[in-house]
């Protein structure tokens, strides 16, 4: 399992797509928003938590097809399926690798980009915390979407259509934590719910992803 994780990480770093692409996309979205809504500081600081969450979500979405598509094309997924590893373990590792290469950098970059959007000072910690708690859920749900569409040529658009509705609860609670943090309100309730979703998804969804992947490999 560890070997698979290391291999995935190495591939992501060598291909250069993992860290760089998602982060650059996050940066671009954040830069584009002020062009779209105008440069007023008050407006920006009010919508900043939401923008950071949407940007992170889209950056996550963009890199999903890399989770499985490459391994599917060169046949290493078939090899993995015959390996002694259970399929549930494989998809969990894949999701973890995706989170380390995409989710974690996003969490770390969010405060820097918050400066660009004049994020209120008390919001910084909550944006980081909510992203840290929420992005694993995004990776795991995304792995499910990637597993569903792995056999489809040019399935990227379809995968977005399938995955985005599944992202709704995570986005709502995550953005709520960040917004309440920015306004100095108590964040306990949405934070607990967000954590609940993350843990629930991490515990249960790999079974669905594994089932879907087995069907696709049939």
């Amino acid at each position, binding site marked *: 399992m560890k070997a698979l994780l290391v291999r995935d990480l190495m591939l992501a770093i060598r291909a250069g797509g993992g860290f760089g692409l998602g982060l650059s996309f996050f940066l671009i979205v954040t830069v584009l928003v002020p062009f779209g809504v105008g440069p007023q500081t008050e407006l920006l600081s009010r919508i900043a938590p939401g923008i950071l969450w949407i940007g992170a979500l889209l950056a996550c979405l963009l890199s999903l097809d890399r989770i499985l598509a490459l391994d599917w094309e060169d046949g290493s997924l078939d090899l993995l399926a015959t390996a002694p590893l259970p399929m549930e373990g494989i998809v969990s590792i894949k999701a973890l690798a995706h989170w380390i290469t995409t989710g974690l950098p996003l969490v770390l970059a969010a405060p820097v980009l918050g400066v660009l959007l004049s994020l209120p000072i008390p919001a910084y910690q909550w944006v980081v915390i909510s992203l840290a708690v929420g992005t694993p859920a995004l990776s795991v749900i995304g792995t499910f979407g990637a597993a569903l569409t792995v056999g489809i040529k040019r399935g990227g658009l379809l995968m977005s259509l399938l995955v985005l509705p599944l992202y709704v*609860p995570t986005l709502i609670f995550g953005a709520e934590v960040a917004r309440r943090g920015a306004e100095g309100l108590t964040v306990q309730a949405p934070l607990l719910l967000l954590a609940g979703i993350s843990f629930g998804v991490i515990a249960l969804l790999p079974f669905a992803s594994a089932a879907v992947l087995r069907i696709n490999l049939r």
Partner: protein
Amino acid sequence: MSFWEYANPVKFIRTTDKVLPWVWALTGISLVTGLVWGFFFTPDDFRQGSTVKIIYIHVPSALMAINAWLMMLVASLIWIVRRHHVSALAARAAAPVGAVMTLIALATGAFWGQPMWGTWWAWDPRLTSFLILFLFYLGYMALWEAIENDDTAADLTSILCLVGSVFAILSRYAVNFWNQGLHQGATLSLDKEENISDVFWFPLLVCIAGFVLLFIALVFLRTQTEIRARRTRALLAREGQA
């Protein structure tokens, strides 16, 4: 005589062929009765004026939008557990009907909301959940279309339906939570069953029956179509090999 006999496609087509004319007739009668009764022969509500007439299409379509998804969920479970093709195809047949019902509920809600709340659209929990439900329908149908192998498509969409159901419920609660944070106490509840009077209740009941029957008729017809389309594909494939 077991319920599972209808899992045989030939038996299913033969039986539904017999039943369908009756279902269509009943659908026509109850829909026309309900809608004409509701539109022409019910009084206006003292607060809502004539917009109360929208209830006769809004409530039944909203009910069917949810029930169609439930039916797809049950059919998907039957497919996963017992692997009856008719079941999977029935789920596929129901999806577009459910999507249309959701669309009707949203559209009539907008037309109703415009004079009552002064806006076509509000991010009220109910409205938002229906929009999300519509997105689920779109994704489900798109996945069916995208996969060529029938059995693979049935398997994958079934699992999507199960996972989607869980997330739809999650979204429903999340949306409730989210909107409370926005404007407290602003309840735009459409739930008037509690205080609705008989004058409105009986035509509404007829309309609901009409929508249910229409859904059944459409699902039967569309399932027949899917069975035939599948058989056509199978026969063509066999000819191609020969």
